[in-house]
C-alpha cells in the first residue's frame, strides 16, 4: 500500500467514525485528517480515504475538489492567505497581494521554488473590523499594511532558513 494513515491518525479516524451515522458522512473530517497527515490530497491519498470509507474514488475526488481549503497539490510550509473580500480590499488588500507577489516571486495560486511559501487569495475571513487580514497557516494577522506583511514574511523566511541549517 503506497499511502496509509499513521497509527495515530488512524486512531483519530476511528474516533471520527463514532461521531457519524454512516461512513460516508465522515468524509470531510477524514479528508481533513488526511490533509493534516500528508500535507495535501494526492490521488493516492483520496483513494486511501475512499477505501477507508467504502466510497468510490470518484466520489471522494468530487467532494475534495469542491472545497478550496482541501489542497490538491503540495503546499509551501507557510500558506499565506490574503483576504480580498470587500472590507479588506477597501483597506488595501490588493496592494498587499501585489507586494507579496513581488517579494515571493510567485503569482497567486503558486508556491515558491524553495517550498516555503504558497500564496492565495481567499474570501472573507470574518474579521472585517480588523481589515486587511491575512491568514498564515492557522494564524490571523490583522490590520496589515504592505510593510507589516513583508516584515512577517522576512521573519518567517529567517525561521525557515535557520530551521533548515540547524536541521542539516
Amino acid at each position, binding site marked *: 500500500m503506497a499511502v496509509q494513515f499513521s497509527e495515530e491518525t488512524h486512531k483519530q479516524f476511528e474516533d471520527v467514525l463514532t461521531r457519524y451515522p454512516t461512513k460516508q458522512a465522515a468524509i470531510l473530517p477524514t479528508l481533513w485528517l488526511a490533509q493534516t497527515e500528508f500535507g495535501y490530497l494526492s*490521488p493516492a491519498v483520496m483513494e486511501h480515504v475512499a477505501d477507508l470509507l467504502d466510497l*468510490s474514488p470518484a466520489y471522494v*475526488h468530487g467532494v475534495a475538489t469542491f472545497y478550496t481549503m482541501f489542497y490538491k497539490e503540495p503546499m509551501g510550509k507557510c500558506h499565506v492567505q490574503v483576504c480580498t473580500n470587500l472590507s479588506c480590499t477597501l483597506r488595501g488588500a490588493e496592494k498587499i497581494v501585489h507586494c507579496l507577489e513581488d517579494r515571493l516571486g510567485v503569482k497567486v495560486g503558486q508556491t515558491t521554488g524553495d517550498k516555503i511559501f504558497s500564496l492565495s487569495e481567499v474570501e472573507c475571513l470574518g474579521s472585517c473590523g480588523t481589515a486587511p487580514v491575512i491568514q498564515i497557516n492557522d494564524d490571523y494577522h490583522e490590520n496589515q499594511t504592505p510593510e507589516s506583511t513583508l516584515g512577517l514574511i522576512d521573519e518567517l523566511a529567517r525561521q525557515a532558513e535557520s530551521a533548515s541549517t540547524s536541521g542539516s
Partner: protein
Amino acid sequence: MTAVPESAKPTSFLLDGRAVDALPGETILQAARRHGVDIPHLCYKDGLRPDGNCRACVVEVKGERPLAPSCCRIPQEGMEVATTSERARHSQKMVLELLLSDVVETTYTLGSELETWARALEIDTPRFAPRRQPEPDASHPAIAVNLDACIQCTRCQRACREEQVNDVIGYALRGSQAKIIFDVDDPMGSSSCVGCGECVQACPTGALMPAKEAGLIEPDKTVDSVCPYCGVGCLLTYHVKDNTILQVTGRDGPSNHGRLCVKGRYGFDYITHPHRLTRPLIRKSGIPKSTEITIDPADPSDVFREASWEEALDFAAGGLKKIRDEKGGQALAGFGSAKGSNEEAYLFQKLVRTGFGTNNVDHCTRLCHASSVVALLEGIGSGAVSNQVADVAEAECIIVIGSNASENHPVAATFMKNAAKAGKTLVVMDPRRTELARHASYYLQFKPDTDVALLNAMMHTIIEEGLVHQEFIEQRTAGFDLIKQNVAGFSPEEMEPVCGIAAETIREVARRYATASGSMIFWGMGVSQHIHGTDNARCLIALALMTGQIGRPGTGLHPLRGQNNVQGASDAGLIPMMFPEYQRVDNEEVRQRFEALWGVSLDPQAGLTVVEIMDAILDDRLHGMYIMGENPAMSDPNLHHARQALAKLDHLVVQDLFLTETAAFADVILPASALPEKTGTFTNTDRRVQLARKALDPPGQARQDLDIIQEMARRLGLDWQYHDTAAVYEEMRQAISALGGISWSRLESQDSVTYPCWTEDDPGRPVVFQKDFPTSDGIARFVPARLIHADELPDAEFPFVLITGRQLEHWHTGAMTRRASVLNAIEPQPVINVHPEDLTALDGAEGDLLTIASRRGEITAYARVDAGLQRNEIFIPFCYQEAAANLLTNEALDPYGKIPEFKYCAVRVSVNRTAEA
C-alpha cells in the same frame, strides 16, 4: 368492489389549457409527453433518477412564483401548467443558449439532444463567451471522451453510479470549472472503468461516444435482437451499415432495461475478423492429427484445402454414415452448443437421435450446471430457475454463492447492486473476493471446497433456533428428518475451523436468510464445478425448502446460466439421457411419444456425456463426431486427454465460425453463422424465450447453421423440409409443452416471453412452484449431503489450489472475444491471479511470467496481483489458448452430474526466469 387507494388514482391537471391526467408517480414531463407535449429536457433520461439540474424543462405553474422543473415535479390535482408561456419559453431558451455556449461547435454524434432542442427552440449562435475546454481523451479502446461537448448534466454519472453501480464517473470541481471525471481524474482508459458504455448511451451531446466516430455515421437499418454472450439475455439493437455493425445500443428488455456490458456493447467485430471461415475446408490427405495445436487460424492451408459445399457436405455426412453403417450408431456422437439457437439445438439433437441412431448428444451445460440440474430435478422436479433476476427488487435477503456475477453476468449483477443500495441484505459467499463483495452486507470468504460445511452449518442453525417453516415442510416437502439428522453434526462452531467462517457470522446469515420476508439464492460455477457439485446444490435447495423461501416473488433458487442459450439448449434436448423438455429416454411411454412425433424408432439407452464421450473414443468405442459450435479442445478438463481423443477420431466434422482449437482436429470444417447473422430464439437464465433477428448476411460462403444441419440430415437419409426457422420452432413447440402459449408470431410481436406459458393469452410465469412442484407427487424432496473433499488436494509438491473461471472481457474459450478488437485490447494476454503475499514469497512481481504446473500439464502466464484471493489460491481464466488453464485441470467427475472439477486442483507455481517477457 374494493376502493382504489388515493395514491394509485390518476391526477387531473391542466396542461397548456387542456385537461389531462397523470398516472401515479408520473412527473409533469412524463405526463405531458404521454399526451403529446414534448417539453425540452437534457438532464432527464428515462430510467435514470430525475436530477433537475439543467433547468431546460422548466414550466410555469399558475400561482407559483418560481418556475418548476417539470422532470421532477409531480402534478397536483387541478394544477395549471404552462409549458410554452412567454416566461417558461424565455427561461428554457436561456438555459439552452448558455449550455450551447459551453460546448464547441464540433458535432460528435448525429443524435445530439442539445442540438435537437436548440434547433427546435430556434437558438442561434450563443451570445456568451465560451469556456476553457478540456483536452480530448482517447485512452479507452471503445469510448471517445470529448468533454468539450459536455454540459455537466450528470446523466453519465447517474448511469455509472446509480444504474450500473460501477462508481467510476464523478463530478469534480465547481462553478465554471465543474467537470466529469473518471476515478481521481484519471484518463478513462487507465481508470477502473469496466467499459459497459452505459455512460455513452446516457450522454445527450456526444461528449462520450463510441470510438472511431461510429456515432456520426447514419445506419442503413437498425435491427432489434439479443446479445450473443452470457445467459442474462439482454435485448439490444444493432445499427448496421453496408452489412457491418456500426454500434450496439441496449433495448428496454425485461432482463436488462437498456443496460449492456462491455461484451454486449463493444464485442461484436469478431464477426468480421480475418480469421472468419468463409469456405468449407477439408483436411488434406496424409496430414496427421497432432495433440500439439500448431495450425495458424489465419492460414490453415498447410493442413486444410478449400472445398465446395457439395463436396464438403458429402464428405462430412458420408464419413459419419460409413461409421454408422459399419459400426452402429453408438460409435457416433454429437456436441451441440449453448451458443446456438433453440431451433439449432432442437434440430441437432434430433439429427443425432434420428440420423445417427444414438443418444450420444451433449453440450457444454455438462461442464457448467449439470450438477445443479441433477440436484434440482431430484429435489424439486425442474432444472430451471424458480424466480427471475428481476425479483431481487422484491427480495429482502439475497445470497450469491460461487458466482462472480459482476464479471460473468454483469447486467444481472447491476440489479443485485441496485437491490443492495436499496437496503436489501446482500450476502456474497465465495472463496475469492470479487467486485460484488464491496456491495454486500456480509461477505463470507470460505475455504475452497467447503461449501457443504458452510451450508449445513446454516441449516443446523435454522433448525436449532426453530427458524424452519414448519407448515411449508409438512405440506410441500418430504425427507426433512433426513436433513435434520444429517446436519445435527454440523454446528457452526464445529464447522468454523473447516470452512473458515466465524460461527457467529454463519448464525447471523442463517437467521437473516430464514427470517427475511423473501430470500433468494443465486449461484454459479463455484458451486457446481466440484465433484460434490450436486451435493452443494442439494444444500441450497434444502435451505430454501426448510425455510419456505421458494414459490413466492422475491424468493427461490436461481442457478445463473453462463451462456446465452444454456437453458434453451437443455430444454431442446441436447442432453444424452433426455429428450426435449427433460423427458427421460429410458421411459417407454415418453419414447413412444417422440417416436410418433419424429416418425422413427429411438435408442432406449441413455447416451454418453461430454467427458465420457472422450473416454469412449480412447477406448475404441466411438469413432466419429459432429461438433457444432463447441470447443472441447479448450473447454474440457485435462486437455491432453481430450485432445488425444479428438486426434484419435476417424471422422470429425466441425461446424464453427473460426478454426478453433477443436477444428484443428477436424476432417472437415463447415463455416457457420454468428448470432447477428441469424434469426432464432434463445432462452435466457430467467426462462425468457427471446427472439434474435438477422441483422447481417454471413460472409463469403458461410451458411446458416440450420441449413447446414438440414443438409447433413438429408445426406444421412432423413427427409427434412423446414422452410424457415419458424417451422423448426413450431415443431419444437409440440415437443415442449411449456412453450405451448408462445407462438412464433407472438415472439415476433413481443420479443420476449417467459415460460411456462400454456396459452396465447397467458403472460407466462415469472415465479413457479407457487402451489406445487413438478415432481410426480407435487412434493419437493430434501436430499442430505455429507462432507466430501476435492479429488486432488494440495500437497508438498503441488501446494496451490487452482480455481479457473472467466474474465469480464472474455467469454468461454475466447473464440469470439479474443477476436473482438476492443475486448482483446483491454485483456490481451494470459494472466494468473495470485495473492500479493504469495507472489512476494515466490520472489516475483506483478507482470512476471509464472509457470503453473499440475500433474497433468504446465502453462506460462503473466502474474496479476489479486488481494481477493486467499493465500495458496490462484485463479486462471480459461480463455487463453496459449496458456490453456484446462491443460492443468482435473477431469474427476461429480458422480451424479458428471461435471468435472474445474474449480479445484493442486498446482505448483514458480517464477519463470528463462522465458523472455
